[in-house]
């Protein structure tokens, strides 16, 4: 009888002591979670696949992101991340100096007829304009008007082959540099997001041409995802059956740096 009581007391005391030490030790204790490829972190990251699956299951493939009225455009689109590839990318500098006259948007990979479009050709195609909210992974939001060609149309013209699973967006801007290896920005999406009616290859912002700081000449808008899934300075759209061969293999520049691939929350 008394042994039982002691055991319980001891158990309670043990629980209280370990809970207390957890708090007192401070949160440096969990800094190891910041190491990419830490097994505990890898385990926690599995929740991201659950989130992706849950959002795909709960939200219709065609469900549209909220579109706002003109009066809700209250400011310019806030530039963030890489805002000027002219600084370190010579090819982009030359293109920009010539008003992107020499720019080509390439559709390549698992397509029957690879395509190339000049900026003027893209601007002469049927367009879509939408006033949407841009949600940065940092937490802020900004409402702006985007004009561009529906990506689904470009993919249809190139005729996507069976077996295609992802679209990889290759960009001019190069991240890193200095002491770290330069890494060209890239992103990827599944076909659902690529063919979504609001997914456009945007060349216009708030009624004008897309400025350099916001991704000129072409930025992909995937309106149901966070800002890092809206690649700027896109030059090649590659249809692929996987993305492990690009960058560090996680499907995007920020994904290679620990961010979740879907970016839907």
């Amino acid at each position, binding site marked *: 009888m008394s042994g039982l009581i002691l055991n319980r007391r001891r158990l*309670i005391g043990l629980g209280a002591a370990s809970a207390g030490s957890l708090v007192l030790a*401070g949160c440096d204790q969990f800094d190891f979670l910041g190491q990419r490829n830490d097994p505990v972190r890898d385990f926690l*990251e599995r929740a991201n696949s659950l989130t992706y699956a849950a959002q795909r299951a709960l939200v219709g493939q065609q469900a549209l992101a909220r579109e706002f009225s003109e009066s*809700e455009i209250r*400011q310019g689109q806030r530039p963030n991340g890489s805002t000027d590839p002219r600084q370190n990318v010579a090819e982009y500098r030359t293109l920009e100096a010539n008003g992107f006259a020499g720019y080509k948007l390439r559709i390549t990979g698992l397509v029957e007829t690879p395509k190339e479009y000049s900026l003027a050709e893209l601007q002469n195609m049927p367009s879509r304009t939408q006033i949407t*909210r841009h949600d940065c992974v940092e*937490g802020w939001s900004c409402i702006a008007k985007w004009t561009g060609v529906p990506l689904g149309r470009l993919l249809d013209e190139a005729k996507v082959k069976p077996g295609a699973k992802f679209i990889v967006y290759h960009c001019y801007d190069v991240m890193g540099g200095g002491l770290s290896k330069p890494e060209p920005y890239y992103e990827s999406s599944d076909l659902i997001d690529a063919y979504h009616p609001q997914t456009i290859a945007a060349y216009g912002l708030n009624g004008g041409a897309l400025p350099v700081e916001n991704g000129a000449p072409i930025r992909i808008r995937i309106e149901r*995802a966070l800002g890092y899934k809206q690649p700027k300075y896109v030059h090649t759209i590659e249809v692929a059956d996987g993305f492990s061969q690009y960058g560090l293999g996680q499907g995007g520049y920020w994904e290679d740096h620990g961010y979740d691939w*879907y970016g839907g*929350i």
Partner: protein
Amino acid sequence: MTDQALGKPEADRPAKGPLIYRQAVLTRITHWVWAIALFFMLLSGLQIWNAHPALYVGQQSGFEFDNAILRIGAENTPEGPRGFTTVFGQKFDTTGVLGMSELRGTTNFVGFPGWATIPSFRDLATGRVVHFFFAWILVGALGIWAISSLLNGHLWRDVILKPRDFRELPRDIWDHARLKFHHGRSYSPLQKFAYFGVFFVLFPLIILTGLAMSPTMDAGWPWLIDLFGGRQTARTIHFLVMVLLVLFFVIHIAMVLLAGPINELRSMITGYYRTSPGTDASLPLEGRERGRGRSGGRREIPTPDSSPQGGGEQAGANRQEKSK
């Protein structure tokens, strides 16, 4: 009498009420799962918030107009850099804690200090990994708790507010103010208000405002944006509910310490709770109606066979109380 003969430690203590089985195993498990999940969600949440330490009202964040209600940052002053927190236009110097703080000997210009975030250094990506993992744990535990509490009567008996709780609330506030606690079969009205608030106001609010920040969920469930009046308002409410949950935690811990930490902790670990003298160990009427079923009937009143702590004593004490 029996316990004196056995020489139990309880025998020479002053009057005690019966030891009752108060917390079902799933109530206890989900309680500790939440304790862990909320700990990680708070610290990873502050990490995420530090990526943009400002709160706004409306659909978007004002960069060329001002709709911020809270902003934390650092500024250069004639005396060097200082950390500042601006709330509704009122600016406070919060150097050392908010906006500017020390971590392992280096000065950091961050919203919340490194000791309050996971990881302690700036790492939004990891903060998000931790936050969303434990968000699933929190919601999963809430689902398990809701179903089990509905089935075992805990929800109806202990959490759902009833007219009686409102009637008895003033008296209970007065008792709490005098630190006079009654350890009964169920919770006191003030406790019920606190738990009801957490389960039916704070948890739903923090989950829904979290979802309202998701551009995908906003497309699927557009009412989320309208319900909260914009994504940035939802983010602000998410933050405020976090503050309320921290406040709940502080009061919760204070009450556990004041009401008898060993007894309170035991009830949340083993399920058994020592009630005040005079407590009827049988289920209250409303609980009995709901808490039917085999285990409910058998376990609520400890008997010599079912109570691991010597039910004979309980039953005897109980009989004595009643006979008085």
